[in-house]
């Protein structure tokens, strides 16, 4: 089912939680709402669910305006961070609750419950109460409860945030598998960019109630169209500093905080020279070089964090700290002086005032 959200605005008193938000979701698409806490993503989701009524704007499900329809008339499923299972009902009763309200027959209920239980591997838990289940099991039951209605739209509100790291990864895969298998349109709210990147077909990034961008996850990483997206998406986060781009002998360079110059490839030419702007480079796009060259920089290692596969190295560069990734085999220690150089095609440039990218203009 296609979902379109048109100029949605939701205010709580004087606070505008969602500001003129528009989005077109195609049938079968998995869309993530990504943003820091308080950015309005959950408010948008609850408005789509019909729990909140918007101050203005409309929500259209498959050509039908549902802006003011009751939640029960929307045929949606919802999964919560807190699982929100009904504590006084058994797993089976939880799953078939929506069918009970529709006065479905015992047989239909049993059959439907069996189907989702098989899909999610929770068949052996049907007689238990939610209090007798682990977090992962509860989340599966919550998913089953949402799926049993055969919803046309599935809403997730940070469903994996309460699970431990390992379980989160496996549930991530599982949700993705089920979504593809059933072809349900999904909206998935998260503040975890890895979840958004790995699961979603398209990611809507929100900040202060405003939609920043709506694009496929990989583009989000390579073509951040605002400074906020650049800094929010990607782990470890992008290095950002104020600087200029200068032209010299037909080549262009950017100046690092320690006044050294690094080359900028023409394919990422911001076309704004000698003017203060915001320069970004991701830690994984900086490499350590043995010998200092004309377009490398030098700095002292102030800290490093072993991440397993890589080490995250903090280097003092002028008055700023630059983060870069190095191989654990490189044997770098705190206090070492190292030479480093950026991959010249990976620079990002943003306007200082508006924060908009000088390279990419997708919306």
């Amino acid at each position, binding site marked *: 089912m296609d979902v379109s959200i048109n100029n949605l605005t939701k205010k709580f008193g004087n606070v505008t939680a969602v500001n003129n938000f528009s989005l077109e979701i195609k049938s079968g698409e998995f869309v993530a709402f990504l943003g820091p806490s308080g950015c309005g993503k959950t408010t948008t989701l*609850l408005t789509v*669910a*019909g*729990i909140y009524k918007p101050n203005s704007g409309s929500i259209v499900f498959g050509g039908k305006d549902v802006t003011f329809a*009751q*939640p*029960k008339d*929307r045929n*949606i*499923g*919802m999964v*919560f*961070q*807190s*699982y*929100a*299972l*009904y*504590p*006084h*009902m058994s797993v089976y009763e939880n799953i078939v*609750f*929506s069918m*009970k*309200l*529709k006065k479905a027959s015992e047989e239909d209920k049993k059959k439907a419950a069996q189907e989702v239980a098989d899909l999610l591997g929770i068949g052996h838990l049907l007689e238990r*109460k939610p*209090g*007798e*289940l*682990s977090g*992962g*099991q509860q989340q599966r039951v919550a998913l089953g*409860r949402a799926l049993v*209605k055969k919803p046309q739209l599935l*809403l997730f*509100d940070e469903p994996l945030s309460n699970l431990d790291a390992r*379980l989160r990864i496996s549930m991530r895969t599982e949700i993705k598998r089920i979504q593809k298998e059933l072809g349900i349109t999904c909206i998935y709210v998260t503040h975890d960019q890895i979840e958004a990147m790995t699961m979603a077909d398209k990611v809507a990034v929100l900040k202060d109630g405003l939609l920043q961008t709506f694009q496929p996850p990989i583009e989000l990483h390579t073509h951040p169209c605002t400074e906020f997206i650049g800094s929010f998406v990607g782990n470890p986060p992008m290095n950002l500093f104020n600087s200029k781009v200068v032209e010299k002998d037909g080549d262009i360079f950017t100046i690092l905080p320690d006044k050294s110059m690094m080359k900028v490839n023409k394919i990422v030419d911001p076309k704004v020279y000698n003017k203060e702007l915001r320069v970004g480079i991701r830690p994984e796009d900086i490499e350590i070089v043995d010998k200092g060259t004309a377009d490398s920089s030098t700095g002292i290692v102030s800290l490093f964090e072993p991440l397993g596969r890589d080490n995250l190295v903090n280097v003092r560069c002028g008055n700023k700290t630059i983060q870069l990734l190095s191989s654990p085999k490189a044997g770098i220690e705190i206090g070492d002086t190292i030479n480093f150089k950026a991959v010249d095609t990976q620079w990002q440039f943003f306007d200082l005032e508006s924060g908009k990218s000088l390279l990419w203009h997708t919306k």
Partner: protein
Amino acid sequence: MRKHKKSNVAYYFLLPAGILIFLFFFLPVILTILISFTDMSSVTGFSNWSIVGLNNYFKIFVHPDSLHIFGQTMIYVSCTLIFFNVGMGLLIALLAYHLPKRVGGFFRSLWLLPRITPAVVYVLMWKMLAADAPYGVLNELFRVPFGLPTTNLLPEHAMLFCILVNGYIGASFGMIIFSSAIESISSDIMTSSLVDGAGIFDRARYIIIPQLRWPLLFVTTYQTLSLLTSFESIMVLTDGNFGTEVWSLWSYHKALNNYYGNFQYGFGSALSGLLVVVGIVFAIIYLKYFKFGELVKEPLIDEI
């Protein structure tokens, strides 16, 4: 290494409260029951009484008033409990939850007024409400304008007024307990049930009320016991006339305040003692009915 000895400190901390409970709650019950085995009264005085065993209880059993006073007590307790202390309390709590926060709060605090009004003043207000025209509000406003005959409504509907007077005080207790219990249900569960297709009535029936089992048990038990034993507002309202003599008031009348001036301490104590037994029986029935054992059962959690 010194072996760790189980500490007795906890008992010392419990001692002050323990002494108070023993002195003011436990001892009076024992004394009452002991007195109920005697024929102590104004006639015998405090020196010439003798032990009569279960005689007083036997007297209750054959007393011509026992049965209908017991019946009146049951009507009074059950109606006040079902329609007000639990029913109305639950209804107000549910209504207030669905109102905007400030309106709901105001609505709830209105219901606290009867509780904070001095009992005698409050009961007198009811008396004036029921009184004959031109003083009685009900008569003056709803009967006089329509040319209907007026009368003092209190003697005609004495039991109804007893229930109303107590109910309007009692409802606020349940309301407070139920309101806080409803507020403590997670908002995700509330949202989830709406998404699952419940309207607000279905949600109240299938989601909210079942989760109020423990507060329901508490309010029902507590209020049954207090309704069985409290009689002050009935005393001020009708003094047990017009078929409103309930068991505890009967006990009071027998033991401490009666027309004939012969205060039958022994017989009155037996009436009270029986009330204690009835209260305990009710409490046990409630605990069984609400499956209290299940409520305090430890959860079992296993691995994924």
